[in-house]
């Protein structure tokens, strides 16, 4: 029988968690309650004596200094409402898992698969609430009903003797093991019904390719040999659907597209990916020749570039949007620990050195009624933030760079970009580390977590819009500690040469990881019965497809088997041999010795027909808003500084460990009070070297309303500017493109698909043009193509968004530069030209207007400027450097001043500009390729000599008096404010 151990703080001890919940009830739900206290509950589903229970309660489960406990009796005393929240059966329970491990150690026993500990938490709320109010708190703050359940007790109805009855949320599966056979020899409607009902997300033409395959004589003959009938098994269908999913196969990026531009000029593009992305890298690499620093691009889980004589760098950025829409905490947590496994599974495996995170949300102050299945943006914000916090901090990887972008079209699907970089020795045991090889005979070994029903259909789920039938099993919780143990083990095994090949289990689970690795040997044979399960009752196809987290798949040479398995066991990591790689040409899956799937490798990986699509570009027309140039722009500047897209994100940044591993050089926060907005991060991954890694990004979805070509150009330029601001070197640089789009495939629900596809084409054209112009090879990327929400008549589509990330180096970190003004009397410069380009600007957003002219990037001029700036920096001539982006020059100057704790005087007449006669446009235009720089007075001449031949000007001076003062075109003051006043405007918005 199950027992409950309840643990709470002694009455004199402050309950910080309870207080935080009370504050969130007030802030998020706008309800007042007097107090909240919490009680941790451990439900121990094991037959234990009272001595054993007491030992557990007094030992691992409570802290004698501050906590008290009761066994099988309630601790709760004073409350108006008691809400207990626990996880649903089968949801990853990290606290429960740790509690079970501690129990096993303390009591010296090995619990059976059914003997578990389950964690839940009680919230004791004092306050004037009715049941509906308590339910609101439970549903909309404390519990996500997809993964958690709750019970509510009023003070009057609570049993103070027995409390909440002990109930273990065991997974109870009684279904017999079956392998279904599906007849594909059927009508079109029937094929589509199969695709829909099984969540295969395959189109009719794709289903017909399957139909034809299973009808082939040679296929039938071969199937007979392995004991399969003519019909497809569910295991086969699921494996095919996953392998062919948009998520895994990038069908749109590989499609044949007929593109018509605004003049009707037709172009045929055979694969956007090959033409523009791979094409750009090919061109850059061939121009670099001997200097080429790319080591491995587009072939592995992440891109690899060379770092120093002994190391290579690895970088990958992923998105985890769909799961984060349903469960922001779990979605973001699995997003970050998931992308960790990419560099870990690249080449022979790398050590992880930093994370990045970029989120796109609707405003947290959203006040309209919420459509079905949509969580409030504030809840998404906090859940995603916490997920990345737990994923990054607990894994010991510093989160060094990121941003948060707000636009209400992210209401339907938030975007959660997570990136991870790693470093690896160039050679391991004398062999190159960046290649992958599997030999026939190598064992298929799975390490790390166990398999459950979590994450089933993740790959196909994210290949669709969010709809009523979106599967809740796609939601899962990550377990950073199980993964951390596995990483410690794998890096040790790597250095001892105990495996030949490694890859991660992400989307598609074993089906994908083993399927991909089997391409190296040309076949595999795997028995699903051997796979370790979290609980009994999984069907064979579920074992193959489960996306349960924290797992890597390896190819282990038979002679290393024993040492590999022993090391795993010693380091507390589960490792299981599931089969072996062969060269039969077949993806052969068994269950308990009986074949359940046998697919031609060639068909599985190359059988998918190329999509044929149409794209038609019609440029949208927007006009500038009718607004006067104000006499005093001070209130406008304050409003802009307070806008969510511009304001300080310090509250989020502080909750991420950005310094672990000891190599921090430029942190996300800079300046006299450690709170200014750094442009990029610098860190030393090798502690006895002065060479630094620089990482930055650019993202500007608002410009997509005008032209996605310029949206991408600006994102690349912004990433590069941020990179250069801290002193990054143009030599050795690499870019990653992450596309998040709204569905560009035609259907009844999607009448403007051709326009969206044209937007995608144009974005790719810009990617090619600017990557090659700036000589930034693209080494990795990802696309997420179905960021729409459709329920009932309501459709919400995100603005097309590309995150462009840059990784590179600074040869000597001691030359790095921060963005804050440093010294009184330093001249202030603006580099680059300001133009009438306010289309898509934050300024025009104030007037709810898009505006006519999107910023355009002149790459040739910009690159010249960037080289000059780099020269000035390497000579130590730059004291501060800050990127001009959202909010333009006005915002960049103000941030430079208040981050340095110094005043500033600026004359707008001196700003190099083209055809602008308004102060507000000069201040807030978002023209690209501009910087605000301060220089020591003595270095003025040398600095100007370095910049010669570029557009730049000295426009002001850093002052002691903490006033920010800007003189306008007609010599009157257009902005005057105290820097602390401006800083407060910038800091207050998201200070929660």
């Amino acid at each position, binding site marked *: 029988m199950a027992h409950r151990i309840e643990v709470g703080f002694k009455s004199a*001890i402050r309950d910080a968690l309870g207080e935080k919940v009370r504050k969130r009830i007030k802030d998020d739900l706008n309800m007042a309650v007097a107090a909240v206290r919490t009680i941790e509950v451990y439900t121990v589903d094991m037959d234990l004596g009272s001595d054993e229970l007491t030992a557990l309660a007094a030992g691992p489960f409570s802290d004698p*200094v501050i906590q008290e406990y009761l066994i099988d009796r309630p601790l709760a005393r004073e409350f108006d409402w008691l809400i207990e929240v626990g996880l649903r059966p089968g949801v990853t329970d990290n606290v429960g898992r740790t509690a079970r491990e*501690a129990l096993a150690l303390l009591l010296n026993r090995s619990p059976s698969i059914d003997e578990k500990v389950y964690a839940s938490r009680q919230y004791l709320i004092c306050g004037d609430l009715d049941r509906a109010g308590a339910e609101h708190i439970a549903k909309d703050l404390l519990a996500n009903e997809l993964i958690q359940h709750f019970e509510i007790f009023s003070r009057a109805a609570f049993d103070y003797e027995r409390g909440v009855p002990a109930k273990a949320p065991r997974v109870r599966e009684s279904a017999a093991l079956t392998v279904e056979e599906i007849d594909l020899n059927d009508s079109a409607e029937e094929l589509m019904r199969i695709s829909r009902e099984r969540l295969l997300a395959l189109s009719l033409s794709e289903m017909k390719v399957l139909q034809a395959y299973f009808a082939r004589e040679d296929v039938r003959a071969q199937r007979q040999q392995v004991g399969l009938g003519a019909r497809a098994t569910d295991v086969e269908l699921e494996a095919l659907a996953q392998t062919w999913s948009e998520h895994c196969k990038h069908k749109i990026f590989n499609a044949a597209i007929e593109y018509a531009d605004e003049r009707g000029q037709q172009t045929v593009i055979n694969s956007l990916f090959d033409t523009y992305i791979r094409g750009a890298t090919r061109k850059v690499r061939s121009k670099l020749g001997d200097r080429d620093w790319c080591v491995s691009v587009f072939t592995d889980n992440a891109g690899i570039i060379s770092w120093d004589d002994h190391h290579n760098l690895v970088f990958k950025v992923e998105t985890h949007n769909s799961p984060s829409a349903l469960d922001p905490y779990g979605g973001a947590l699995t997003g970050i620990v998931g992308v960790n496994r990419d560099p870990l599974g690249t080449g022979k495996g790398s050590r992880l050195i930093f994370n990045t995170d970029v989120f796109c949300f609707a405003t947290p102050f959203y006040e309209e009624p919420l459509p079905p299945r949509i969580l409030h943006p504030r809840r998404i914000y906090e859940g995603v933030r916490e997920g990345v916090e737990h994923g990054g*901090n607990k894994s010991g990887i510093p989160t060094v760079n990121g941003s948060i972008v707000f636009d209400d079209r992210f209401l339907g699907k938030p975007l959660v970009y997570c990136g991870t970089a790693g470093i690896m020795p160039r050679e391991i045991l004398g062999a190159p580390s960046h290649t992958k090889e599997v030999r026939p005979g190598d064992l298929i070994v799975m390490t790390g977590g166990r398999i459950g029903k979590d994450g089933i259909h993740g790959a196909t789920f994210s290949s669709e819009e969010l709809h009523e039938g979106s599967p809740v099993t796609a939601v899962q919780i990550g377990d950073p500690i199980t993964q951390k*143990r596995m990483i410690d083990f794998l890096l040790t095994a790597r250095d001892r040469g105990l495996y030949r090949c490694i890859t991660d289990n992400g989307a598609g689970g074993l089906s994908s990881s083993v399927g991909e690795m089997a391409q190296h040997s040309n076949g595999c044979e795997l028995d699903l019965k051997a796979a370790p399960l979290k609980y009994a009752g999984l069907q064979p196809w579920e074992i193959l497809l489960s996306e349960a987290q924290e797992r890597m798949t390896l190819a282990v040479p038979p002679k290393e088997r024993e040492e590999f398995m022993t090391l795993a066991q010693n380091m*507390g990591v589960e490792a299981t041999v599931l089969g072996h790689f062969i060269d039969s040409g077949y993806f052969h899956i068994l269950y308990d010795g009986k074949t359940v799937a046998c697919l031609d490798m060639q068909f599985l990986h190359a059988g998918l027909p190329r999509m044929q699509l149409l794209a038609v570009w019609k440029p949208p027309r927007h006009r500038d808003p009718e607004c006067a140039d104000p006499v005093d722009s001070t209130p406008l500047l304050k409003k802009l500084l307070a806008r969510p897209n511009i304001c300080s994100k310090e509250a989020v940044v*502080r909750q991420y460990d950005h310094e672990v591993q000891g190599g921090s050089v430029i942190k996300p926060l800079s300046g006299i009070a450690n709170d200014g907005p750094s442009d990029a991060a610098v860190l030393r991954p090798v502690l006895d070297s002065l060479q630094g890694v620089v990482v930055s990004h650019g993202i500007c979805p608002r410009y997509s309303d005008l032209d996605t070509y310029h949206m991408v150009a600006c994102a690349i330029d912004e990433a590069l500017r941020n990179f250069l601001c801290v002193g990054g070197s143009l030599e050795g640089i690499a870019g990653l493109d992450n596309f998040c789009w709204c569905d560009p495939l035609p259907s009844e629900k999607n009448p403007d698909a051709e326009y969206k596809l044209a937007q995608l084409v144009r974005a790719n054209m810009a990617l090619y043009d600017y990557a090659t112009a700036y000589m930034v090879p693209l080494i990795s990327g990802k696309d997420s193509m179905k960021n729409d929400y459709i329920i009932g008549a309501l459709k919400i589509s995100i603005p097309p968004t590309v995150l462009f990330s840059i990784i590179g180096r600074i040869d000597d970190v001691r030359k790095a530069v921060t963005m804050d003004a440093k010294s009184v009397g330093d001249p202030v410069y603006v580099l680059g030209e300001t133009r009438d380009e306010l289309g898509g600007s934050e300024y025009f957003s104030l007037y709810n207007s898009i505006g006519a002219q999107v910023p355009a990037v002149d790459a040739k001029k910009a690159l010249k400027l960037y080289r000059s700036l780099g020269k000035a920096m390497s000579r130590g001539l730059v004291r501060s450097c800050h990127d001009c982006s959202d909010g333009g020059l006005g915002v960049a100057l103000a941030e430079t001043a208040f981050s340095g704790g110094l005043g500033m005087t600026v004359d707008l007449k001196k700003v190099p500009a083209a055809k602008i006669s308004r102060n507000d446009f000069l201040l807030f235009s978002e023209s690209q390729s501009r910087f605000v720089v301060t220089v020591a007075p003595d270095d003025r001449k040398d600095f100007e000599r370095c910049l010669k031949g570029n557009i730049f000007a000295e426009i002001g001076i850093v002052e002691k008096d903490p006033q920010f003062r800007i003189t306008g075109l007609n010599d009157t003051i257009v902005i005057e404010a105290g820097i602390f006043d401006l800083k407060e405007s910038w800091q207050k918005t998201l200070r929660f």
Partner: protein
Amino acid sequence: MSRKNIRALVVSGNGTNCEVEMAHACRVGGADDVDIVHFSQLLQGEKSLLDYDFLNLPGGFLDGDDLGSAKAHAIRLRYARTAHGESLFDHILTFIQQGKIILGICNGFQLLAKLGLVPALNGAYGTQATTLTFNDSGTFEDRWAYLTVKEKSPCIFTRGLSSLYLPVRHGEGKFIPGDAAVLQELQDKNLVVAQYTDRSCEKAVMDYPLNPNGSVEAIAGICDETGRVFGMMPHPEAYLHYTNHPRWTREPVPEEGMGVAIFRNAVEYLKKNL
């Protein structure tokens, strides 16, 4: 008696994550041999604590801090036996008796407190008298903190230091003594080694965010009565080079990071006393 080779051990595994920089700190501080040893190697008997002089318990999230910070690992250390049947906890007690030294940072400090290895008043090693729990803010925070260091403290790690500036990176750093008597004894015996303060580094402050977690008496670190076992929440191993300082691009900062002194003191102590 003096010995030349100082051997430092940094124990990793089960969720530690500052082992690399802590090992680097030991080297920069002058230790001759520095090994990062996975906890499982101690369990398997491949390595023995007793072969080392300086035990480092690095920061991290042992077992995810799932039962409270470092709690599950404290149980593991307490009850685990090596493949040779020896108690790891006995090894630690012997290690202390031999006059050797232990440094626990952040999660390592939480581990020392929950194992009762600090403050171990009147030599009661193994009896928990203090704890570290959730910050008053209820949130994890990464921020730099000024510390005032008690010069009268017996702590061998902080000799010659009167102040420090180091990052804190924790969600459970609020120090709480078991009762008023424990606090009194900590103060009487000068076992309160470091307290949160302001930029002047003169007296302890309770104001957030200078005191980032609401610690009682602004306590950031304590030692045992021998001064050889020391636990602290802020991270000295995160400030070894001047470019770690958050304002190195704007303020004159010495070449060597402030955290190095802690490790150099440790090594010098061992060189003189072992």
